[in-house]
């Protein structure tokens, strides 16, 4: 298929003797929402860490928009257009809400050490633009009224939204969301679902790891099911719901 944005082929990853990912291949298609589901310990977050270069795979390769990104450093992969959120929210606690999102603009701005030191007009202009753009992304997640607060003072649901705002501020082509609904109440989860489809409509492809099945079935275009590091099913939400293997993995053998 020619509109594949991310292609994983034969990915292997083990930690010591533990096989986390075993011979996994999949493709993510442009401007679609793809979900990865599976029981705890299936290797879902590991895939995100492999894609974003936090650690390298033992075998196999990732191709992002036709370029091999395996073994590239995290910050380079980010600059190429892959952004993410974290399962255990990783916000910058010593920075205000606005500054957190401004940091997301790091690769889209260019002031280096020298121009930062001498504080020229370029710096002033760039800082102003960064602030305006960051405010725009805060508007999308509806956090503008709290931009001068610190992340720890936000309720958990808002912290998740802030992390999403920071991630899309990098102007990614591909956004990885790691359990964005965990810890959210029903209403917040519904809003999140709307937000994710809105982001998809901004031409950002989404790869989603999530346990909330209602949300997954509601917004996903395609679903991959993992169990113990292996892909046991892949397909449309409707097909996955009726797949015997999947039911077995989730409910155990009878």
């Amino acid at each position, binding site marked *: 298929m020619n509109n594949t944005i991310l292609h994983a082929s034969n990915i292997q990853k083990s930690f010591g003797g533990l096989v986390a990912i075993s011979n996994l291949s999949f493709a993510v298609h442009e401007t679609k929402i793809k979900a990865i589901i599976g029981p705890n310990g299936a290797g879902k977050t590991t895939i995100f860490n492999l894609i*974003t270069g*936090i650690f390298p795979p033992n075998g196999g390769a990732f191709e992002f928009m036709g370029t091999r990104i395996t073994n590239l*450093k*995290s*910050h380079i992969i*980010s*600059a190429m257009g892959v*952004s*993410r959120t*974290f399962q255990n929210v*990783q*916000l*910058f*606690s*010593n*920075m205000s809400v606005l*500054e957190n999102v*401004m*940091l*997301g603009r*790091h*690769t889209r*701005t260019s*002031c*280096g*050490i020298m121009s*930062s*030191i*001498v*504080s020229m007009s370029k*710096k002033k202009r*760039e*800082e102003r633009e*960064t602030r305006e753009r960051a405010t725009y992304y805060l508007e999308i997640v509806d956090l503008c009224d709290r931009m001068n607060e610190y992340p720890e003072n936000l309720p958990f649901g808002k912290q998740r939204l802030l992390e999403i705002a*920071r*991630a899309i501020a*990098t102007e990614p082509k591909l956004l990885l969301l790691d359990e964005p609904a965990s810890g959210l109440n029903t209403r917040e989860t519904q809003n999140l679902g709307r937000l994710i489809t809105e982001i998809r409509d901004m031409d950002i492809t989404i790869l989603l790891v999530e346990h909330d099945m209602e949300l997954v079935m509601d917004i996903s275009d395609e679903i991959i099911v993992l169990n113990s590091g292996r892909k046991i099913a892949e397909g449309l939400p409707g097909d996955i719901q009726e797949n015997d293997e999947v039911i077995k993995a989730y409910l155990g053998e009878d």
Partner: protein
Amino acid sequence: MGKKNSFTLLILSVFLIIFPFVTTNTYYLSTMIFVGIHGIIAIGLCLLMGYAGQISIGHAAFFGLGAYTSAVLTSRFGFHPWSAFFLGVLLSSVVALAIGIPSLKLKGHYLAMATLGFGEITYIVFNELTDLTGGPPGMGDIPRISLVGFMVNTDVKYYFFVWAFLIFILVVSLNLINSRIGRALRSIHDSEIAASAMGVNTSKLKLQIFVISAIFASIAGSLYTHYVTFVSPSSFSLSFSILLVMMVVIGGMHNLWGALIGAGLLTIMPEFLRALKDFEILVYGAILLIIMIYMPKGLIGGLGYLFNRFKK
């Protein structure tokens, strides 16, 4: 740089200009010169510790590299003090790169260990290279430095000379942290994984800041040499490196002003603790303990907290 910083800077400058006219005691003046010299190192170390989240236990060695480069080149080889000054900065940057490149690629506190080793090695080199450095007794006869034709040869002149350097370095550093680069630095401190996932080249940035902090220490070293006109290895030992770290921690790691206050406190305090002789280390320990327990954000953070409570 922000209004708050500009205002504080203005108050500091006014104080600095008035100070030598109010005090006639050269002893106070010379203490203030040392506060300035230590302050320059502490500002660099604060960038490294409070903003890049890395610890160096070898900054006395960079201070020493600057001091000895100036001392040896000017007194033994007849170099112009300013050429020696810049060669010291160059040497310190090269050494900082050599230490930083391998150790900052790794996550964790490898830089602390590497700088600890480097500090000890440098200390031994200063002691053993007797032909160049004069060995443990040290070396004297170091010429004074001049500025555009004027010799900086009195305490008052040197006082202004050192503090002009400090103000320059402080402004440079404040500009640096209030910028895109400063934001990236703070993000590394908070979550290195998230920072790199957002596109920050964390090892490169940490390395750059480490080199900058080494350059500041080297500048302070050259300023020290031309003031004291005598250097000996004991001024650049491990215990001085630790004292420098304490300055930053006591003042408040996340605040350059805090580093300056820490430098002032730990430079002036020993003058009062002379009577205690070797027991003064106990007083330091107690102060550090109290600050760590009751003011984890340092004096600046702790006082700011108290101030806000009184306002309410």
